[in-house]
């Protein structure tokens, strides 16, 4: 894609929790931003522009929070922009920031995404304040039922994903859920919330923020830590519903993936990508996106899960961070996928590092499974082989 190369030079995130009562919204975003700046070896003055993303304002009931957060994020006197793409917003916020560098407009851009769910009520927000709200799980459950029906997947696949991501989260110091005794038994015995989704197959509500500093080649050369090269980005959208829509394999998701792969020379994603961070708020979305982005063929996604391919030691690790199933500050959840994908190719993922990760995929989706943002990161500019 590159008009000029773009790198992730700094990554920061908060400790994600059910309620971060110790910080305000301002304190929350600054905690992530300061960590990203420290990683990038730069200060607020080195940032040319700020791009902020979060899920709909109704979730906290604070309208246009980018306005009151501008000062705290060093945005005074600088270009600052807010991105809105529902659950995928963290991904598209990062991508938009990368384009500002890619296009030669800025040298260093700070991208920040966050949610403080404890100060609002996302269920109320999703329901538009009316009774009978279904939540995100209720919206996706019929799609999941269709996937299971179309592929004859056994019901334990969802439980396996739920266990795997929570085990990965135990290795991630920032993750919200730490369920040390997580097991298939525990997941299958948890309460059924939206048939076929059980409580432990669902994401938590979290407070948290994520920040990424993106920079030019010169900015990367001046940074103290290794960069992650942003080799390609893609975003796609479709209507929430239309006649003949395949909600289990949305065309926008297929198109987004192929636009991304084509732009970086990936012809066999399963072989050429070393690790993926996919937006999996409900367990079944792991096999669904493996198929929906043509990493696996029809009905092969759940077999990859069944075979252990998506475990941290597997042939195609998915969500070594613990994923959305372990931390869900909604607006930040998409950026956390990009952040982990970047950390992996920088070799800075700590205990959840996938060995030999040189090419990674970050993906986020939102709305009624209709907004997609995806990016490929490399340890070098020619990492895709």
């Amino acid at each position: 894609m590159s008009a000029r190369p773009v790198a992730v030079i700094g990554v920061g995130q908060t400790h994600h929790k059910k309620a971060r009562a110790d910080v305000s919204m301002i304190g929350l975003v600054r905690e992530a931003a300061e960590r990203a700046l420290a990683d990038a070896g730069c200060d607020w003055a080195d940032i040319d522009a700020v791009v902020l993303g979060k899920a709909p304002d109704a979730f906290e009931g604070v309208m246009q929070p980018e306005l009151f957060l501008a000062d705290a994020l060093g945005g005074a006197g600088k270009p600052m922009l807010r991105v809105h793409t529902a659950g995928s917003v963290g991904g598209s916020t990062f991508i938009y920031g990368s384009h500002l560098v890619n296009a030669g407009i800025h040298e260093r851009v700070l991208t920040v995404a966050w949610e403080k769910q404890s100060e609002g009520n996302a269920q109320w927000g999703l329901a538009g304040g009316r009774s009978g709200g279904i939540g995100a799980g209720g919206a996706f459950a019929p799609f999941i039922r269709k996937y299971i029906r179309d592929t004859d997947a056994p019901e334990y696949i969802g439980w396996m994903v739920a266990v795997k991501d929570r085990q990965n989260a135990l290795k991630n110091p920032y993750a919200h859920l730490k369920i040390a005794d997580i097991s298939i038994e525990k997941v299958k015995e948890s309460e059924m919330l939206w048939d076929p989704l059980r409580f432990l197959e669902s994401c938590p509500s979290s407070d948290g923020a994520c920040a990424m500093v993106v920079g030019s080649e010169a900015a990367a050369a001046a940074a103290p830590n290794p960069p992650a090269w942003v080799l390609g980005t893609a975003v796609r959208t479709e209507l929430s519903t239309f006649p003949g829509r395949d909600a289990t394999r949305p065309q926008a998701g297929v198109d987004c993936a192929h636009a991304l792969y084509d732009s970086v020379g990936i012809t066999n994603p399963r072989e050429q990508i070393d690790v993926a961070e996919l937006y999996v708020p409900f367990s079944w979305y792991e096999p669904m996106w493996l198929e929906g982005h043509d990493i696996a063929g029809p009905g092969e996604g759940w077999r990859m899960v069944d075979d252990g391919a998506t475990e941290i030691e597997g042939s195609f690790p998915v969500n070594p961070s613990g994923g959305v199933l372990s931390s869900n500050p909604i607006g930040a959840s998409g950026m956390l996928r990009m952040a982990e994908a970047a950390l992996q190719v920088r070799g800075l993922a700590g205990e959840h590092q996938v060995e030999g990760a040189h090419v990674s995929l970050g993906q986020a989706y939102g709305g009624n499974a209709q907004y997609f943002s995806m990016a490929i990161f490399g340890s070098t500019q020619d990492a895709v082989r």
Partner: protein
Amino acid sequence: MTTEKGSASAADEPMVVDDFVALTYHDRLPPETVRFADGLIAGRIIGQRCPQCRRVYVGGKGFCAMCVVVMGPESEIDVADVGVVTGYTIITPVRYYGQTKTEPFVYASVLLDGASSVLGGQEITGIAIDAVREGLRVRAVWKPPEARNYEGHSTRGWGSLAGGIVGFEWTGEPDVPREQYKEFAV
């Protein structure tokens, strides 16, 4: 407004302030929504048929989303009030301000006979909640004429049946084979 202070023993507890604000909106409904709403009050379900692809939208928005061509009053037809459940889940209601549901309820998509677009979020009655399934034949349950109104319509989304129809009930007929509705499932 109510104010709740943390106890003296938990000095680090934040003070929580509930401050409810009400806003009243007046929506100017698009003409096709007004005709659809008036149809429900008259006991009719109005669909819009695309002049190009012939797809039939229920709760038509005045244009075909696939062909991007206008669908005006001349494209409108009556659609049957019977159809098939193409997808569903059972919702365990969560509590939030304004939520009145306390018991699990069915959230189903219904494809009316002759329509190409599904009606999302429908309740299914006349059958046990755990017997609801894809392929179930259902019929609209109409409000009595005097109780019909403009409920649920807004400038957002596909519209609503709530002004005339409270939900769908099982007709008692045999299930519809999946092949017949698969293209429009969920």
